[in-house]
């Protein structure tokens, strides 16, 4: 019993230190629903609680005039037959997008194009948690090997992480602090826009998070215009 109390106390102390660092005013951008990513830039997240919309207004930054979803299903867990059926609903999230997102896109003259090829990578990723640098490195590898098509100005790579594969972004945790996020990276192929959607047991929640992150990518591709 004494041991249990001691260990519990240690965890509580350690946890309080981590929390104190994470709430430091400089550790979060001023814009709602933004966090700092793994190399210090800002990235827009979809909160884990989808009912939290935050206050958003358009500040005049660039938008994607057209957006085409290119899906990447990443991780061995997608090979499980009980989850593969969900891929069908996810490969065309623009098609089933809620009216609110469609209206936002329409307001800013953003057209969504027919979703492009789907890529499945069920290989063993050798780790169960992928941070944003892992995602960028994976995109770089897939583009260099020409496994996925070279991006155009319309391309939004949407990476669906498999069950059993979790995600972090700048030290923030999927499922706790965010349900999805979008970011961009400049590689030899050019500027790459991408969305990361961790798995969620609730298919409706899963699809809704992806749709919101996809819409925010089109409206706010470089994180400068919409917050």
């Amino acid at each position, binding site marked *: 019993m004494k041991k249990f109390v001691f260990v519990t106390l240690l965890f509580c102390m350690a946890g309080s230190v*981590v929390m104190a660092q994470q709430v430091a005013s400089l550790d979060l951008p001023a814009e709602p629903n933004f966090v700092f990513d793994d190399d210090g830039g800002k990235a827009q997240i979809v909160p884990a609680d989808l009912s939290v919309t935050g206050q958003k207004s358009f500040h005049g930054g660039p938008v994607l005039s057209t957006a085409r979803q290119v899906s990447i299903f990443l991780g061995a867990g997608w090979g499980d037959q009980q989850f593969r059926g969900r891929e069908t609903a996810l490969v065309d999230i623009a098609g089933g997008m809620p009216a609110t997102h469609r209206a936002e896109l329409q307001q800013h003259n953003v057209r969504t194009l027919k979703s492009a090829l789907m890529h499945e990578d069920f290989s063993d990723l050798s780790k169960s948690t992928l941070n944003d640098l892992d995602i960028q490195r994976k995109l770089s590898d897939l583009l260099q090997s*020409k496994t996925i098509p*070279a991006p155009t100005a319309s391309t939004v790579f949407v990476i669906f992480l498999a069950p059993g594969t979790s995600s972090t972004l*700048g030290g923030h945790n999927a499922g706790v602090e965010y349900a999805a996020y979008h970011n961009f990276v*400049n590689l030899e192929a050019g500027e790459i826009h991408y969305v990361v959607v961790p798995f969620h047991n609730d298919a409706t929640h899963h699809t809704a998070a992806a749709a919101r992150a996809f819409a925010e990518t089109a409206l706010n591709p470089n994180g400068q215009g919409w917050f």
Partner: protein
Amino acid sequence: MRSPRRIWLLLVATVLTIPSSLLAQCGVERWSVKTGTDADVSKVNLNAPTNTTITAMRAFTAPSPIPANNRITGPETTLWVINATLTLFKLESDSDYHLVIQDASGNTMITEIPSPSCVGAGSPFLPGITNARAEFNARFSATTSFQTANIPVKVTGVGMFDFLHGQTGVAPNGIELHAVLDIVFNPGTGSDFSVSAAPTSLSLTQGGTASDTISTTGSGGFNSSVSLSVTGLPAGVTASFSPTSIAAPGTGSSTLKFTASSTATTGTFNATVTATGGGLTHTTTVVVTVSAATAPNFTLAASPTSVSIVQGTSGSSSISTTVSGGFNSSVSLSASGLPAGVTASFSPTSIAAPGSGTSTLTFTASATATTGTATVTITATGGTVTHTASVALTVTATGGGTSTQLLGNPGFENGSTAPSPWVVSTGVINNSTSEPAHGGTWDAWLDGFGSAHTDTVMQQVTIPANATAATLTFWLHVDTAETTTTTAFDTLAVQVRNSAGTVLSTLATFSNLNHATGYQQKSFNLLSFAGQTIQINFAGTEDASLQTSFVLDDFALNVTTSTTATTELIGNPGFENGATTPAPWVLTSTHTPLSIINNSATEPPHAGTFDAWMLGWGVATTDTVMQQVTIPATATAASFSFWLHVDTAETSTTTAFDTLQVQIRNSSGTVLQTLGTFSNLDHNTGYLQHTFNLASFVGQTIQVMFVGQEDSSLKTSFVLDDISLKVTQ
């Protein structure tokens, strides 16, 4: 004493509270530029630190686009020194220390110290990054949360434009010092010294030596001797200073001599020169490349390696030599194996010392030069080294004919986007300096988009039926952004098509793997299309990423037509009279009844209805097919050809069990020459044409004889059709 279990629990609890991001992770975006492993790192002068300010750095114009693996000359190739105030710092998930510095006016910019574990071993920045990281760790403990500092610093680092991404403290133009190589806290105005090397990189051969000059410069009243040492040398390389230290007051130079043994480790290494004096230590880096010792030698090459000329004309090939390993001698050139009536000359006659250069080899054929193809051996000798190369020289008969260039608008010089008689895809005709023409102003630039794309260039011509030579030449330049040395991602097919667009032959396929500086001339023999209307078609196909440009210019399709008569000597050449004994052919067989002439669909003919199906029984059999002809003494050429199809039930890939000999006999049946022997090993789908020169039998009565022999098991069929012996008089 504390309980071991409690200590263990404490350790577990501590480990569990370490954020996963603290585990080693390295960045991705422009990471090679950030850490000094990019393609342009050799342009960074690490030995000339330049003082600047945050205001001056923020005034640079940000490039657009920012190159992924290259540097912007100036801002990104200079080692900058900035005095400012360190305001904020943080450990990022990519293992960088993110430092925000600020000037007195409140202008900020980012400086970053990567983790040495994320820096390639070959980076010249690595010693400095390691140094700066240690200097920072000695003063602060960076965590994943921002901490404030407000301390004066002198930061030394290489400039780098980052992509604007809302980073804390980022300059408006994205300029950073990335990587930081040195950081001094609370820098004073006291005495100091600097150290530099010239040159900053040098080459060393196994068994050789190389020298560098190390200079030190004191400032601010510095007055001390400076001792010198070097680390980071590969096995087998030693270094010495002369003098070993710079005498007080500390300004001077020393010669650093590297000596490599004959077994020194080869490769590129960063030698760190450490200068210590007056209680201060500074370092500079010399990049040393050790290469294997090589014997003096040269290479010899000919381009093109095949030359076709018509009697009474000349043709040339470019002979080039390239020296290596310190070779230094003139190289003499000679040619042997020339056909009768052909001379060869070199201009210049030899390559001057040290032995690298080019000479034009010109073949000149007399009007009576021996026709046919000969292998000419080019011999190059310099010092004690001799090399040879081969050029296939084909001499064709003039027949008193004339030579004509068939292609219209061969260099696209009418400048039209629809340069008739060419038919081209949109945007191909070009006069930009990005891809300059081989000659004149215009060229055809296929592909080069870096996305999935196909360009075509086509012209239709008719090669006269009486052509005795038809050679297509053009100049091709290939450049590419592909980096593979093994995979042809983007291709250019050179095709001959009929007038309906059906591909008759693909002459060659070039790709990104053929990229080269400048143009190369390509040459193809199109005589086999004499009498046909054909389309010369170029199809460039590019995949979805990384451009490859195929640039074409200065085409020629030179055709020589004969005014002399050509006569077919073989009677009943395709056995089309359908007779079992098809005179003037004489057929024999050990199989009875005689059954060689065939019109069954099992072995269909090459053309017409009938063929000669020899063997194919699967039992021991000998078949012969023979015709006797006389080649006139006045013949200037005699070409014997036939179409042959071989199929077999044999499975061996090494043993010729069943054979077909093609013989020339005299009228008594004595074998004068065996032109060729085919076997079950030559089996293939469809027919192949085989051609032999019988000019050496001019004036003789000969028998052309096919002798087929089959062993006792597993059948092989030799099917002959359309046999021809054409003579020119």
